[in-house]
């Protein structure tokens, strides 16, 4: 890694660990190394800190059930968002063996889509629901797909590439009408928008620490009280026998702290992040011809902007931005090592003239107006340079 200043606008990929979070977790990597499962006070006191973190996450999600010991037992700690997604789907299938179908949207994260392909190989049915040009789910197709063979519907709370927020309550109601469970991958939503599980029909919800300023490698699966659950990782009695394996204590505590920060700062941050995003989008629209903002403007995350620059290719844009320390990401084929543009953009039917040149900017509370202005200064010449190289670009497009 070099030391040149970094303008990090790739917070949907991962976030920095907040300084307060680092401070909260450090003792558990040094002094407080006890095993929360131990009988002695040295370990036992760590168990209290784990439970405290669990409560903070429950508060962020407004998951209000408490057992007689005051514990937020609806929260299960896992190793990452991907594990939570896998655990949710498998649990639904194993607790409803007479139902063989899983329904998801076409724009889910690979944690769901590739699991679906694996399920198909094992004889289950995996059906994916299309989206429209703005990435909105086709509710009618969803209703038609739902039947009494459906064990679970999984639709993400918010999309990582375009930031769309999906009507999860409405979808949960539909699923329940057919006796199916509803799971939502809320990895991109938790900490960014308010979530109110006490007044919700969501049965299971996935979350991942590294998207909200906690470290990588810690996740949460929320399982509503009363929903039958079968563990995905079988082992010791940890997490009330729902997830084997000694707790990742330092990261659990970190996620607790991150949840507290997110909850306290939420109202402010939503405003601040939308301001940064709008400043970027409006600035780009003013300065660069032939671009398009992707997604559902009426329902999306405050921090995410997906911009298509027509006639050029994303990897080249990213590498030129990288020269200035600007870190974003792209839905282009070339950056991911695959040869096709992202499945989300393709599901939306974004034309290839734009899909290959799509860049995602995603902000966090640590970004500044100055950084946005820096991007607005550096990006237009980059786009112009690449367009000059492109056989598809014509000067009259600039008008």
């Amino acid at each position, binding site marked *: 890694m070099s030391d040149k200043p970094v303008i990090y606008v790739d917070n949907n990929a991962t976030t920095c660990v907040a300084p307060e979070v680092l401070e909260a977790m450090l003792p558990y990597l040094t002094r407080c190394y006890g095993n929360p499962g131990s009988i002695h006070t040295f370990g036992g006191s760590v168990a209290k800190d784990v439970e405290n973190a669990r409560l903070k996450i429950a508060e962020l999600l407004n998951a209000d059930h408490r057992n007689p010991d005051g514990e937020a037992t609806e929260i299960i700690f896992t190793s990452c968002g991907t594990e939570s997604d896998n655990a949710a789907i498998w649990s639904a299938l194993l607790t409803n063996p007479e139902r063989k179908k899983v329904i998801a949207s076409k724009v889910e994260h690979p944690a769901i889509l590739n699991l679906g392909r694996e399920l198909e190989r094992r*004889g289950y049915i995996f059906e994916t629901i299309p989206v429209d040009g703005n990435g909105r789910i086709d509710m009618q197709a969803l209703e038609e797909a739902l039947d009494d063979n459906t064990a679970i519907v999984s639709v993400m709370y918010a999309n990582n590439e375009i930031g769309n927020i999906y009507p999860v309550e409405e979808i949960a109601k539909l699923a329940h009408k057919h006796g199916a469970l509803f799971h939502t991958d809320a990895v991109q939503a938790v900490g960014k928008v308010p979530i109110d599980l006490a007044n919700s029909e969501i049965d299971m919800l996935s979350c991942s620490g590294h998207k909200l300023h906690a470290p990588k490698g810690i996740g949460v699966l929320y399982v509503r009280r009363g929903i039958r659950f079968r563990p995905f990782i079988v082992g010791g009695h940890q997490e009330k026998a729902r997830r084997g394996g000694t707790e990742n204590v330092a990261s659990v505590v970190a996620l607790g702290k991150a949840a507290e920060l997110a909850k306290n700062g939420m109202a402010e941050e939503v405003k601040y992040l939308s301001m940064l995003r709008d400043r970027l989008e409006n600035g780009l629209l003013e300065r660069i011809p032939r671009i398009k903002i992707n997604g559902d403007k009426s329902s999306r995350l405050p921090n995410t902007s997906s911009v298509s620059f027509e006639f050029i*290719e994303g990897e080249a844009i990213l590498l*030129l931005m990288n020269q200035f320390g600007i870190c974003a990401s792209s839905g282009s084929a070339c*950056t991911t090592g695959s040869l096709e543009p992202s499945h989300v953009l393709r599901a939306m039917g974004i034309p290839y003239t734009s899909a*290959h040149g799509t860049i995602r900017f995603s902000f966090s509370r640590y970004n500044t107006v100055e950084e946005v202005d820096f991007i607005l200064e550096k990006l237009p010449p980059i786009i112009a340079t690449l367009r000059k190289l492109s056989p598809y670009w014509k000067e009259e497009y600039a008008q």
Partner: protein
Amino acid sequence: MWNYNEKVMDHFLNPRNVGEVENPDGVGDVGNITCGDALKLTFKLDENGRIADVKFKTFGCASAIASSSALTELVKGMTLEEASKVTNQDIVALLGELPEAKMHCSVMGMEALQAAIANYRGEEVADNGDDHEGAIICKCFGVTDTKIRNVAKQNNLHKASEITNFCKAGGACGSCLDEIQRVLDELWNNAPAEKAAPKLDDFNKLTTVQKVFRVQEVIDKEIRPLLEHDGGSIELVDLNGSNVIVRLTGRCSSCPSAGVTLKYTVQDKLREFVSSDLTVESI
């Protein structure tokens, strides 16, 4: 992030010979926007028949731009006779190296050059720089068997995954990968590459006991663990020619998806690890 060397980055950041030559003698247009790479090459000859001016326009990633830029440096001053012998390997050599998955960018450079020369000579070229002859093997990228054979011969490629790196074929839906491998196997008939999975004729040469042994091994190591995950199991009952007869036990036997499980899991695995001609029957 790709690891490009300094030479590639230099050609990407400071591309040479960008643009279009006015009144060109030859024009080569290859690739297209759908597959994410396209290159337009134009050149002009001097009175001695050497390439006096050559320019490019490229839609694509950093290595596509660098490969195009390198190509123009390479061929400037060459006669068409010399230029027509330039291969993608020469472009890679000038750049030092390209990541394996980006080799197709150098191939695109070579194709644009060939298309431009053909255009000068008044020969007909296809829109996409793909040969007219040959059958389309990869629908996603419009790649023919002729092109696969050419790329394979020029770069000594034996595996379908290598073909994907060099000309993209097989890199989208992947449904053509078996077919690509078949073209390669045919091409390299005299010098076949080491193949991981045993071929059918190998299998057919085995004694019955050896066959049973091999099938049993794959069932034990590859298939049973998968079924056990779902609470079922499997036993080998008999082997009749290439028909494998098994008994599914436990959860699998009463599970309504047993037919599918059988087809997808058992047969796929046996075909993958033993022989592609096996069929499976359960009793």
